């Protein structure tokens, strides 16, 4: 494979407007819907058999965030999980405090069976956040993290590159 590394200044080849959606799979949409709605507080809809969509709450008609951009998770039902996911392939959520992360650890541990959670890791500080990772029964990894105000994604974006190779 010949991969050139010299940078070039020009318009990108793809005129991307939005990074809009991530996809994952589950062997049981009913179970994962209960997790996404009941545990994570997301809004879900099943627009067709075998497909579940999820987004943050508040974007419904008349909702406080209607018209603002949001991220969509698209979950398809499958017979088998072809590739088990690992920690470096996860979906993240933002917690309002470290205490909320600790609370999540305790509550998820106590309710694993109900929400289809296979494993919950103890919260720890890592890479600027305090986070708890948990794995669902489809091997999808999830993270609930708290970032201090100086290390939120928005603040880091504004700072630009802090490291170079």
């Amino acid at each position, binding site marked *: 494979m010949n991969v050139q590394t010299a940078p070039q200044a020009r318009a*990108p080849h793809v005129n991307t*407007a939005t990074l809009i959606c991530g996809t994952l799979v589950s062997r049981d949409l009913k179970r994962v819907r209960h997790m996404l709605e009941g*545990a994570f507080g997301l809004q879900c809809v099943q627009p067709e058999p075998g497909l579940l969509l999820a987004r943050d*709450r508040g*974007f419904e008609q008349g909702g406080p965030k209607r018209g603002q951009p949001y991220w969509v*998770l698209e979950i398809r039902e499958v017979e088998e999980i072809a590739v088990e996911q690992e920690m470096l*392939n996860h979906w993240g*959520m933002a917690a309002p405090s470290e205490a909320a992360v600790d609370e999540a650890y305790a509550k998820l541990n106590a309710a694993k069976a109900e929400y289809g959670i296979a494993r919950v890791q103890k919260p720890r500080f890592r890479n600027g956040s305090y986070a708890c990772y948990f794995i669902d029964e489809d091997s999808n990894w999830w993270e609930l993290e708290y970032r201090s105000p100086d290390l939120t*994604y928005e603040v880091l974006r504004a700072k630009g590159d*802090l490291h170079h190779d």
Partner: protein
Amino acid sequence: MAYPTPLLQNDTLSHGTVECSDMVTTRRFLTEFLGLDIHRPVKEAQYMYKGGPWTVVCVRVDGGEAKDQTQDNLFKLSVNSAAEVDAAHEAALRHAEEYGIRKVEPPRDADGLRSFRLQDLNFTWWEISNVALSHYDALFDRGDVAH
């Protein structure tokens, strides 16, 4: 709309993650080819975003290759028209070797949307589509379809 209180205190979906073997060549693909915005706040990862607050964290895998994902786990990029999907597809075919693009599938039409998929140098799948948030708004507004 009245929602029940969830188990977790979750302010928002904040990010997803992908793996990469080489930060520099991956960044070139993500910015020059896919047109994403990138910044690198830490040595081990670069953060990509476009058009909203959501971030995909690209984490460097030390001492090996990124996981070979299937199309079950991909990221979708929205462009403004079917013509732009086709233009992106042509660009993917033309520049595949330059950017280490491993596979490029033909465009397809479904539910009034046009899209194609490609697998990048890190085995991550991307779908370029003319889907817009209005499409998802309509699906959420319509509610569950009985089956």
